[in-house]
């Protein structure tokens, strides 16, 4: 059953200078297109991961779906009850002046208006569920480690009884050993509560562990969307191939690792046609002139024409 559908979602940010400066210096209005015509759908119970380099628009897309931004164009249809979000920085995502029990209770208090006693026992339950003890509710966030704070964030998100949980790089600020614990907790909760995850990450190792399907973002555009097993064994889009080739690989397979070449272009002046053409080894005239449509879940002229498989 489809939980979420995105259709041509685009988001522009106004990054022009102040009106007076623009007037005096004759500068035009400048728009940054952070997300550009993204369409995909999300089924109940699955985990979709969005990957991409910094500035690829992953976080903006997450915030669009969470309702923190409105799309400039396009449509987001959510068929569930509630979305909750877990943020990247566990040091900034908990209000430092609130006790943990207040932080976890806020969604219950605001969304369900339960009695104090009910809320209290629910908070204790949630803290237990994420591997903390109910007594921890009396403490303040600064008394916890990064991993524990992320557990608190998860408890708070679960308090809102979400259908969809958006995780914006939930482990990238944590130590590697703690990352695994948090990921295990998340997949255990998914099984138990039949949650749907939208998982934003730039860490392909993490993504391969948690995701059912993976979408690859480049400069705000979705260049490839495939099941995780397919994407990791047989990447199709040249950009995806480049990413995969850059992943350190532990079973020294003899495969030559190629570093990711070039840098993400300036999103204020994106390349014409296919945004990836300046870095693409298969690029030719048509890629410069024409934006590739997303066919068979890959947006690439070379694949469309069968020049690469």
């Amino acid at each position, binding site marked *: 059953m489809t939980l979420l559908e995105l259709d041509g979602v685009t988001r522009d940010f106004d990054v022009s200078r102040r009106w007076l400066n623009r007037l005096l210096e004759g500068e035009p209005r400048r728009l940054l297109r952070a997300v550009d015509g993204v369409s995909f759908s999300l089924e109940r119970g699955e985990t979709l991961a969005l990957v991409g380099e910094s500035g690829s628009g992953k976080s903006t897309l997450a915030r669009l779906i969470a309702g923190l931004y409105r799309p400039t164009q396009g449509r987001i249809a959510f068929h569930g009850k509630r979305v909750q979000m877990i943020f990247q920085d566990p040091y900034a995502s908990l*209000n430092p002046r609130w006790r943990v029990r207040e932080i976890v209770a806020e969604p219950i208090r605001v969304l369900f208006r339960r009695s104090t006693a009910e809320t209290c026992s629910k908070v204790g339950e949630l803290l237990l569920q994420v591997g903390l003890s109910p007594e921890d509710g009396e403490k303040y966030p600064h008394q916890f480690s990064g991993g524990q704070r992320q557990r608190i964030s998860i408890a708070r998100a679960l308090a809102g009884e979400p259908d969809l949980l958006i995780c914006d790089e939930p482990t990238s600020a944590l130590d590697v050993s703690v990352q695994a614990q948090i990921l295990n907790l998340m997949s255990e909760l998914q099984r138990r509560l039949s949650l749907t995850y939208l998982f934003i990450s730039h860490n392909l190792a993490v993504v391969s562990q948690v995701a059912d399907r993976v979408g690859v973002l480049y400069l705000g555009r979705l260049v490839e969307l495939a099941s995780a097993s397919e994407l990791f064994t047989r990447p199709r889009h040249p950009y995806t191939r480049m990413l995969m080739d850059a992943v350190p690989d532990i079973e020294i397979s003899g495969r030559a690792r190629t570093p990711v070449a070039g840098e993400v272009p300036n999103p204020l002046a994106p390349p014409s046609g296919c945004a990836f053409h300046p870095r693409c080894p298969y690029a030719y005239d048509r890629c410069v002139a024409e934006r590739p449509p997303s066919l068979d879940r890959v947006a690439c002229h070379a694949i469309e024409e069968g020049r690469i498989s």
Partner: protein
Amino acid sequence: MFLKRAWDHELAWHFRRSPVAIAAALLTLACVGAALLAPWIAPQDPFNVAVLDLNEAFLPPAWLPGGKAAFLLGSDNQGRDILSTILYGARISLGVGLASVALALVLGVSAGLAAGYLGGRTDALIMRIADVQLSFPAILIALLVDGVARVALPASSQDRIAIPVLVLSIGFAGWVQYARAVRGSTLVERQKEYVQAARVIGRSPLAIMAEHVLPNVLGPVLVIATIHIATAIITEATLSFLGVGVPATQPSLGTLIRVGNEFLYSGEWWITVFPGAALVVLVLSVNLVGDWLRDALNPRLR
């Protein structure tokens, strides 16, 4: 339990190690205590006309020839005991100072929160008003508000409402610095993810400002407020000295200095000098506490 926590707090530790802060705090406490307890510790009720005796006018301080022991710091032109008028006057000065700081704080913090959190046009409007107001000296704003209120209100009620008007004018003159400080911190807090987490569950901007942002931006405000109390007392004294402050029937320290000023050249210096000295001690001690608090809360100075 609470006292133990307060004692162990970092700020208390800083406090115990700073002799200036301890001295200033004790002095401030003494001033505030004396002012609050004026009706009980003052030798005379200077506003009770029945006990005043014109034969006892212009008495010098007790230790000078002609002084009386009952009038430790001498008496004024109406035979009022200077020490008692100072104690009662400090009460009014402190009261006006605290009330106007409270008003400025509420106005400024609300404006700063709204400007910082809502941004856009609201921000531009509030901060432009602040800029314009900041280009005038605070005392001028206070004089303006005071003058307008005096013209707008009937003359008969003027003595009665003089103090509220004064509080209003000093409070209104001082909101800008709170607004600026709070706006700055709010801009930082607004970006933090706990604010976005609150937005995801659909909390209103007002609830987020009051419950999430406000507790996180209050630190610098308390420092400004402490230092502002001293400034507000000075402003009140200046306005009273200029004759637009509290009426002579209910004199504050500023009024006492103004009234005494008329006798300075005829040799009765004590009528103006002692209230002046009291004002200096009061303002200095409050200021020192404020300065210490500012340094103690500034991580870069630790």
